[in-house]
């Protein structure tokens, strides 16, 4: 673990990504503490306040402080995205591994079905699921998880099959290791790396998907200060108060970049044979 972190920070992308995400994490943890205002406190006279001394990042159409909303919003945006990806990955990983080990017809059946599900575009699945569960963070979260699961299943399966071919697994079997031990001690550590990398990069997608769902009105709901929602609320005032779009838009972009960078960094760092 330490080993990996060290290697990760040695890769330029890894270092940069980690730095960016560190900031994001801090905001998620302590944002509310440093926020100058209550994110939902409205101020009739302060509507559309230009960024400045009173409102560092300006204020929105209800006179709510943009900075405070941004700081609070981090919690409404990033952790759900993480959670969704995690859920999707776990679900997918389980199915994928099962398919890989069941093999034969089962494998065939599972994978074909997964292909079928993947034929429905992710955003569409998300939309349908979200509108089924009713709009809101929860719905969006589950929706993304479901949209991600098939892809992750596919990846996990192929990784599992590849690892299964390695001689050290054969060696373990020949040595008379128990099935569980082979899976957890020999295969998992090696199978994990690619999956971790993939899901890290997917968090970036999740952040964007979250935002997009909010934009389409099935994601987070007002008065939540979820970033995507802030952008779509702000779009209307684009010309009078551009900061209402720019600020949360950048926040989303930077976070996503962070995860993409981290993912690429991990890909290098997790390569056990230390090649570049």
């Amino acid at each position, binding site marked *: 673990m330490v080993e990996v972190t060290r290697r990760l920070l040695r890769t330029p992308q890894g270092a940069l990504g980690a730095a960016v995400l560190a900031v994001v994490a801090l905001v998620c943890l302590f944002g509310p503490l440093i926020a100058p205002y209550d994110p939902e406190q409205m101020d009739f006279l302060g509507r559309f306040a230009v960024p400045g001394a009173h409102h560092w990042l300006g204020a929105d*159409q209800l006179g709510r402080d943009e900075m405070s909303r941004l700081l609070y919003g981090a919690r409404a945006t990033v952790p759900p995205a993480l959670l969704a990806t995690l859920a999707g990955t776990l679900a997918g990983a389980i199915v994928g591994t099962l398919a890989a080990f069941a093999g034969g017809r089962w494998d065939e059946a599972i994978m074909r079905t997964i292909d079928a599900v993947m034929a429905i575009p992710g955003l569409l699945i998300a939309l349908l699921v979200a509108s089924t569960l009713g709009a809101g963070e929860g719905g969006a979260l589950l929706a993304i998880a479901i949209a991600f699961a098939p892809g992750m299943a596919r990846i996990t399966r192929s990784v599992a099959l590849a690892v299964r071919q390695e001689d050290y697994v054969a060696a373990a079997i020949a040595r008379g290791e128990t099935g569980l031990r082979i899976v957890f001690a020999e295969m998992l550590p090696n199978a994990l790396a690619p999956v971790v990398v993939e899901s890290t990069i997917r968090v970036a997608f999740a952040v964007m998907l979250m935002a997009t769902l909010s934009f389409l009105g099935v994601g987070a709901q*007002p008065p939540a200060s979820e970033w995507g929602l802030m952008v779509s609320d702000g779009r209307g005032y684009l010309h009078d108060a551009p900061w209402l779009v720019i600020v949360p838009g950048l926040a989303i972009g930077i976070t996503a970049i962070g995860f993409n960078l981290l993912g690429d960094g991990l890909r290098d760092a997790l390569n056990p044979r230390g090649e570049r």
Partner: protein
Amino acid sequence: MTTRRAILAGAAALGASLPLVRTRAATVMPVNGGTLRVSVDQAAGVLNPLLTRVNPEYLVSELLYSGLTRLRPDMTAEPDLAESWSADPDLTTWTFKLRSGLLFHDGSPCTSRDVEASFHTMLDPKTGSAARSNCGPIKDVIAADTTTVVFHLTGAYADLPVALAYTNAKIIPASIASGDMSVLARSANGTGPFKLVSFEPERQIVVERNPHYWDPSRPHVDRVEVLVYPDPTAEASALIAGDIDLIASVQPQQFGRLRTADGVTALRVPSGQFLNVNMACDAKPFDDMRVRQALALTVDRQAMVGFVAQGYGTPGNDTPLSPAYHFYRDLPLKGRNIPAARKLLAEAGYPNGIDLTLIASTDPGTRTQLAVAMREMAKEAGFRITVQTMPHATYLAQVWKKGNFYVGFYNMQATADAIFSLLYTSSAAWPETRWNNTKFDALIAKARVTTDEAQRKDLYGQAQMLMNQEVPSVIPVFFDLLAARRSYVEGYALHPRGAVFLLDQLWLGAKAPRRG
């Protein structure tokens, strides 16, 4: 008696000549010809005029179809297919005289038979037309002779001519009305000023001048293209860039920008369109009037106009009538009074405040804005409100007319009676608040059968005071209707009703671009 008949006849006669008077009055002679591009913010999916539900659909059906009357911007009725009308003394039987020589787009004559058939279809519950509950207490419609139609009402009703101007009360060929209506889903055969050329609900609907139209002087433009631009920001950009000539309805967000853009004229008219916070008066906690009154006292209505309507509106006084209505009674505006609100709430048995969940659909977005603003304002008085938003479809299916604390949104209606008996009387079509106030019902019923202006004004005045006092629903804001046109678009008056557009009366000035 005679006087009354005289008034009505007079009104009709006056009406007959009025459109010409108004459209010509202001400016020079209209120029004919040209193509008008008007944009709407959502798809006009339903073409059948009896079933249209949203403004873009009303806009289109108004181009293609006509009713017996239509609504002037001052909310009085003007003749359309009917050239005059009269009522018997007790106002339960009305006789409408059709213009002679009316033709449908396909050239077939439009007679009283078609009117009769159209109304029978509209009033048939299976049709599911909104006209059924909005055209007054019609018992039956009978074609006396080819140009005469007689309306028998279940009770006296003075507003019938205005009521018949209702958006869904359009005349379709009898053959279709009593036959297969499904053809109206993709084709149109009406008596309106324009004929349907092409219908792509999600993109654009094109209509062209109807040569058979009863008034040879209208329409002025040869062709109208109705374009669907769902994104308000882009829509405004399109008008500024000159890609379109007219935006039927502008969001407050865009209005400031449009007002300052050159070559563009921003239009604004006070209207009776409002948001209300409905409270179920037949269930806890709102069955106690004091709770409702307390909530009403927490609202800073002037500020609310700013928050919800971006300042483009007028404060509401918990009655559905705005200054735009004919029978508006100017009551002192309720101010924000937290101590009083606290007191009322305490008396109602909630000394430590009360927890409520306010439901708002996401469409239009102003519903949630109102809900959130409400929550913030009511906090101080001890209302702990949780705002719950949901997709409009879910809202209609689960909350609307059922919930006991939610945000409603309504267009201006043609008459005071229409809006009152749509929402607030015990027999309301959409009983949102179940207020069931017999005193109120009596006032509305009496006003219905009264023709004397002063009397009606007084009756409706009392009704308004009653609502203002008992607060079946909090009505904090009336929206101004906003629109924008290229400056060369002339003769277009933004209609406060919201669902009426009268595009046949506008024309393209000299500076208009010539479009193929």
